[in-house]
C-alpha cells in the first residue's frame, strides 16, 4: 500500500516534471553480417537488425503504457560500420548509410547509431572510407547517426583524424546549408567513447558486448530541479545537503529506467545491458539543465560558480545512479547541449555563456561541446583546434568528452539557427580568434598518451 504523498509525488514527476525514459536503444552486433559483397552485406544487416527490432517500438509503447511512463525515443545502435564494412569504399559506405536509414524507417525507430569508427591510435582502410563518406552519408539520410573516436587516455589523440573530422564537419555542413548545417547535429567526435551508451548521436555497440542488448537512457532534469526547489522552500540547505537531494532523486529516476529497460528486454527476449542516467534536456520549459543552475542560486549557467555547480550536479547524479543499479553505464551525468536546452541557449545568447566557459564546464560534466552552432566561415584548422582541446580534456582526465559542433553556412555570431524537434534552436556562438592561422593542428601524428595511462 502506498501513502498519498507517494502516489502524488510519482504522478507529479511524470505529469509536471517531465520524467520519461528518454531512449530505449537496442544494440545489435553486425559482425556475423560481414561480407565483401555489398548487396549481400546489406541483405545480411537488414535481416539481422529487423529480426531483432521488428517488435521494439510496440513493446516499448506497451511497457511505457503499463507504467504510465513514456518511452520517448526508440533507437538502434550497431557495431561500428568502419569495422564490419571495412572492405568497402567511401561510395559504398554511403550506400550502407542509405540502407541503414531505410531499415530505421522500416522498424519505425528514431535514429540508428553506429556509422562509426574508432581511430584513436590510427586509421585502417575502413576507417578512412567511413570518414570520407560521412558528409554525404549524413546529408543524404535522416535517421543515421555517426561518431568517430579520435582519442583515448590509453592511446592519446590522433591529430590526423582530428583534422580529417574538422574537414568532414565542414563538408557535411555545406551539404546541408539549406537546413543550417543539420547533418552535423548527427555527428559526434569523441574521446574515450563508451561502448554501451543509449544516447544519440554517439551510440554504437562495442565489440566486447553481447549479440543483442537493450540499453536504456533515462533523463529527468525537471525532476531534479523541482526536488531542489521543494527542499529549499522548507529553509536553507548547505550544498552538501543539496547534493544529497540530487543523489536521492537521481537514484529514483534510475530505478524507473531500470524497471522499464528490464521489462522491455524480457519481453523482447534480449539481454538487458545498462541504464544510463544522464540529465538530458529538451527544448521545453521545465525540462532544462540550465534551470537547475538557477534553482541552485546562479543567475544563469555560465556565471562564476557554474563549473563548481556542474561538478556537484554531475557527481551527485553518478552516485545516485550507482546506488540504484549495478548496471550503470554509458555517460551517466549531466549534458549541456546548447541548442537542445532553451535556458542554456538563452544564456549563451545573452552573453553569460561563452565557448571558453562551455569548454571549462565540459571538464566536469558528461559530454562536451554539444550542439554548439558556430560561424559558417570558421576554418578547418580552428575547428580542429577546438576539437583537439576538447579531446585533451577527456584524455588527461580519463573521462568521456565529445564535440557536436555545427558550422552554420552563411551565418555569423549572433544569428539565429533552427534545427527543429529535440535538436532545438539557438544563436550562433562567437569563436574568438578564429581567423588566426593554426599550424599546430597540421603537424599531424599523435599526441602521446599521458603518463597516468601506464597502469599495467
Amino acid at each position, binding site marked *: 500500500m*502506498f501513502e498519498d504523498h507517494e*502516489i*502524488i509525488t510519482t504522478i507529479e514527476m511524470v*505529469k509536471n516534471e517531465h520524467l520519461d525514459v528518454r531512449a530505449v536503444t537496442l544494440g545489435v552486433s553486425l559482425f556475423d553480417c560481414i561480407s565483401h559483397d555489398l548487396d549481400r552485406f546489406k541483405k545480411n544487416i537488414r535481416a539481422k537488425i529487423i529480426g531483432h527490432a521488428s517488435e521494439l517500438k510496440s513493446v516499448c509503447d506497451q511497457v511505457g503504457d503499463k507504467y504510465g*511512463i513514456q518511452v520517448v525515443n526508440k533507437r538502434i545502435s550497431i557495431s561500428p560500420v568502419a569495422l564490419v564494412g571495412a572492405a568497402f569504399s567511401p561510395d559504398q559506405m554511403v550506400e550502407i548509410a542509405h540502407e541503414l536509414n531505410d531499415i530505421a524507417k522500416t522498424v519505425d525507430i528514431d535514429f540508428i547509431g553506429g556509422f562509426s569508427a574508432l581511430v584513436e591510435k590510427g586509421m585502417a582502410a575502413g576507417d578512412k572510407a567511413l570518414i570520407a563518406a560521412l558528409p554525404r552519408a549524413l546529408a543524404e539520410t535522416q535517421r543515421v547517426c555517426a561518431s568517430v573516436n579520435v582519442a583515448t587516455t590509453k592511446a592519446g589523440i590522433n591529430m590526423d583524424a582530428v583534422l580529417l573530422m574538422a574537414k568532414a564537419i565542414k563538408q557535411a555542413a555545406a551539404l546541408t546549408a539549406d537546413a543550417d548545417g543539420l547533418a552535423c547535429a548527427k555527428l559526434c567526435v569523441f574521446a574515450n567513447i563508451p561502448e554501451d551508451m543509449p544516447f544519440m548521436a554517439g551510440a554504437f555497440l562495442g565489440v566486447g558486448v553481447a549479440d543483442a542488448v537493450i540499453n536504456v537512457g533515462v533523463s529527468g532534469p525537471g525532476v531534479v530541479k523541482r526536488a531542489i526547489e521543494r527542499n529549499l522552500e522548507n529553509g536553507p540547505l548547505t550544498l552538501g545537503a543539496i547534493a544529497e537531494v540530487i543523489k536521492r532523486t537521481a537514484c529514483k529516476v534510475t530505478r*524507473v529506467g531500470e524497471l522499464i529497460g528490464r521489462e522491455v528486454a524480457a519481453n523482447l527476449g534480449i539481454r538487458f545491458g545498462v541504464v544510463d542516467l544522464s540529465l538530458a534536456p529538451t527544448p521545453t520549459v521545465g525540462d532544462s539543465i540550465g534551470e537547475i543552475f538557477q534553482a541552485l542560486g546562479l543567475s544563469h549557467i555560465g556565471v562564476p560558480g557554474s563549473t563548481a555547480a556542474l561538478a556537484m550536479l554531475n557527481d551527485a547524479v553518478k552516485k545516485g545512479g550507482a546506488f*540504484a543499479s549495478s548496471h550503470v553505464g554509458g555517460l551517466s551525468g549531466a549534458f549541456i547541449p546548447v541548442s537542445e536546452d532553451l535556458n542554456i541557449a538563452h544564456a549563451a545568447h545573452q552573453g553569460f555563456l561563452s565557448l571558453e566557459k562551455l569548454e571549462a564546464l565540459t571538464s566536469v560534466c558528461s559530454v562536451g561541446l554539444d550542439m554548439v552552432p558556430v560561424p559558417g566561415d570558421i576554418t578547418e584548422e580552428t575547428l580542429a583546434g577546438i576539437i583537439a582541446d576538447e579531446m585533451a580534456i577527456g584524455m588527461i582526465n580519463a573521462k568521456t568528452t565529445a564535440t557536436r559542433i555545427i558550422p552554420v553556412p552563411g551565418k555569423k555570431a549572433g544569428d539565429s539557427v533552427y534545427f527543429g524537434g529535440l535538436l532545438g534552436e539557438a544563436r550562433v556562438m562567437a569563436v574568438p580568434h578564429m581567423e588566426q592561422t593554426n599550424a599546430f593542428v597540421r603537424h599531424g601524428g599523435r599526441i602521446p598518451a599521458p603518463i597516468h595511462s601506464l597502469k599495467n
Partner: protein
Amino acid sequence: MNRFIITVLAKDRPGIIALVTKVLYELECNLENVNQMILQDQFAGLFLVDAPADLTRDRLHADLDVQTQNSGLVIHVTSLDEKNGAPMGGTGDIFLITTIGPDQKGLVARFSAIIARYHANIINLKAVFKGGPDPRNNVMSYQIWVTPDLDTAAMFGDLRQKAEELGLDIRIQHKNIFDAINKI
C-alpha cells in the same frame, strides 16, 4: 488453527487498541495482523488473531463485549472458517488508478462500477476531496488486482473515457513504478 477477524469501530480516543489487545492477551490469543485507520474522528480496526483451539467465536465475542462495555466500542467477530470465498491469490498484477480533480456526486460509484464490470478487485481505495488547487486535496486512488484473463486494455479505456466525461485527470500505472520510486 482457530483464527478470527475482530472488527472494532468507535469514536477515536486514546486507549482503544490497548483495551482490545488486553482482552485478547488474557484469552491467550496471538495477534497475527492488525490494521487500523482513522477517518475524520472515527476509529476502525481489524485484528487477525490465532486463538486457542477451545475458544469459540461466541465466547470471544462475549468476553470482548463484557470487558469493553461502557467504552462505546462496536465489535464484530468473524471466524475465518465462516468467510465465504477464497482469499485473493494466484497470478495477477496490481495497478493504481488515480484521478485528480474536483469532487462530484457519484464519482466512486461510477468508477467502481466499471472496475466491477470487468471483475477486477479493488484492494484499496482512498479518496480525499477538500477543494482548492492542491492535487493532494482532490484525489481518488484505487489499487486494483487484475488477473491475466481480464481485458485490461478495454477496462482502462473505459476508465479513461469516464474520466474525460467527468473532466478528471486520470493516471493508470502498474504498482511497480511506485515501488521503484518510493520503496528504496
